[in-house]
């Protein structure tokens, strides 16, 4: 009964519903994007009504919200934070900088394409994206989770070598604990 595929499916549906309704966000506030988070959370836009809520540490968080450009120095920390998060976990790339480098397209120390290094589930476009688009992004993520399509973490796990190769290319001194869960 428990190992029955159909019952597992039902459990998945319920769990996906719960995951969708309860999104605890760890905002990695690099760059200017962090300033868009307070209005999103406070009374004007009130993300909490959608179940979106801040988490204090990566262990508790579901969503890693990367708000802006990542230098090679911060990328190391972001990878670390992402690997400390517990499954199921999602990544939202926030702002143009995470998509294609934005205004830092020719900078010598910021990465341009986040999804080469971390599995991004949802991108929120804009420089900066307004709180409305942030909410839209969360809505999209909820939709993906509800359909069981937000499987970035699985992708990361399966293609770990590819991601590692990309990461190590710009972080030559690689000292990081093993990632094996």
């Amino acid at each position, binding site marked *: 009964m428990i190992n029955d595929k159909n019952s597992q499916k039902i459990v998945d549906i319920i769990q996906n519903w719960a995951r969708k309704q309860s999104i605890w966000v760890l905002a*990695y506030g690099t760059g200017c994007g962090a300033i868009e988070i307070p209005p999103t959370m406070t009374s004007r836009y009130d993300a909490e009504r959608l179940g979106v809520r801040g988490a204090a*540490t*990566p*262990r508790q968080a579901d969503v890693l919200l990367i708000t802006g450009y990542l230098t090679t120095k911060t990328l*190391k*920390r*972001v990878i*670390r*934070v992402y690997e*400390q998060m517990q499954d199921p976990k999602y990544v939202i790339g926030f702002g143009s900088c995470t998509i294609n480098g934005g205004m830092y397209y020719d900078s010598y120390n910021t990465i341009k394409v986040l999804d080469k290094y971390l599995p991004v589930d949802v991108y929120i476009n804009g420089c900066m994206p307004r709180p409305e688009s942030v909410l839209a992004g969360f809505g999209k993520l909820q939709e993906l989770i509800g359909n069981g399509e937000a499987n970035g973490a699985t992708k990361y796990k399966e293609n770990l070598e590819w991601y590692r190769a990309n990461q190590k290319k710009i972080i030559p001194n690689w*000292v*990081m*604990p093993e990632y*094996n*869960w």
Partner: protein
Amino acid sequence: MEMIYLIFIIFLGGAVATYLLGKINGVLRDITFLATLIVPAVLFYTQVSIGQTVDFSMSGMNLQWGITDFGYIFAYIVLGLGVLAGIYAVAAMKGKENLGFFYSNYILSIMAMMGILFSRDLVSFFIFWEIMTWSSYLMVVFSGKDVQKVGIKYFIFSAVGAYAMLMAIVTTYSLTGSMMIDSLVTAYPGFDFSMQLLIPILLLIGFGVKSAMMPLHVWASGSYSHAPMAYTAVFSGALSKMGIYGMIIVIVSLVSQIPEGHWFREVIAWLGGITAVGGTLWAVAQDDAKKLLAYSSVAQLGYIIVGVGVGTPLAMLAALFMAVMHGLFKGTLFMAVGAIEKQTGTTNFTEVTGLIRKMPLTFLASLMSIIALAGIPPLGGFIGKWMLYESLVGSDHYMLVIVVFFSSTAAFLYCYKFLFGFFLGQEEPEWAHVKEAPAMMVVPMIIMAIGSFILGVFPGLILNPIDAGLQELGYASTQGRYWEMSMLFNEWGDKVVLQPILYTIIAVFVFFFVFVVAKNFKKTRYVSTKDISSSGEIPKAHENLTFSRGFFQPFLRAVEPLMKHQIDPLYTGFGRGMEAIFDFVRRIYTGNGQTYALYAIIFAVLLLIFKNQLFGL
């Protein structure tokens, strides 16, 4: 031959033999040492019956030895702790120098304590008391560190206590013409009031020093932390209880006979309460485990003194139960500190961290003892605390119960500090090599921890002899009224039933253990304590992230006004003043013949001037 003599002969002979064998062979010495502890203990429990006495005469004084019901309780503590700590000591002191001296001293201490419990007359009581003091003094200075500061402090306070006691004994003899404790008790109500006040106060100074009562506790922190830990377990666990033993006899048998005794007891109870608060607050402020436990001992003895001072049957039960429990858990904790000191070489919380995975059994014993110390059910410390509170509330000591409660709540702080400081927190590579202590050290700790667990569920086991002892002191039987095998009642008949509580806790625990913890634990994998969420940073191996300095700083800031007043400076000031006077006196002797001649002339002149007044001519 009388069994009582035999016990003492074994003790004495063992002490000498261990000392001598210590020069020849280590193994033989250890075996003799353990035998000297275990054989008398076995003899005592099997052959000596309560009430059995031996009389003899020495230089014209009649002396009497024999064990009473009341002394029997303390004999449990002394012999039980003595044997277990002795086994521990053999492993703990291995490789130290001058061990024969240590062991024979240890045996002498145990013998002296047994002697105190056996003494039915004041002379042998005093002699054994002095042997105890001397042997413990030699233990305090055994390590040879800070002898000036710590040893002298202990020595001076013990000496003052002993002189006070001697004065009381001599006064008693001059008043009654007998050295028997019983005759003092019977003659006491007939004394005049100043004597009725003087004798207990003098005796209490003597006993208060050993039981670290408030103004006389100054020696305790230093001495407890400087003696070898194997001995401190006995020092704090059993030896300090001798002060309690004497104190109970003084307060219950003597002072309670007169109407003013009520106020006397109140003062003692409040002194105990202040001792508890002061000891606790200073314990919270310590960074060294030995010091922390030393101050904690002072605080715990404070609770016992509160119980003794209040003196209702329930309070006496509480005090004696706590005395037994304190021997158990504080002995374990001192042993644990000794084990950690042996394995790491330091006892400072700011240096040692993260030993839980290296010394799991020591941690387990410490955890159980700490739970007992904090008074959390279902371990034994709770029983004593519960009875103390109920007795305080029941006997209208409303402010005192708040004071005691404050102290015991603040005790959680140092309890956590002890566990966190040593066992939890970051695992530093510096201590990666640390192994669990040898079995001979761990087993006594575990036995005692289990003992405090059993007493927490079946307090009747130890309340039974306590009850017999209290009846000896003139209390009515309390069994059925205040306690049963695993039930407690207060003055108003409200009860705590311990067994269902234990079963509930075990049932819920097992449920979570099986269904949540164990299942989870298997599925998860261990990560080191460097793998923590520290803002995405990866702490390097040498980066020390342990939080151990200024551990309770906010709390200490809040209670700063309470801790501003210390008794130490007063004593130091007194000492300085005396020194100044002596110094002045010394200056008279300049060593110069001219000056002496001048003195003689001045003296003659003064004689001449005042001769009329002096000689009435």
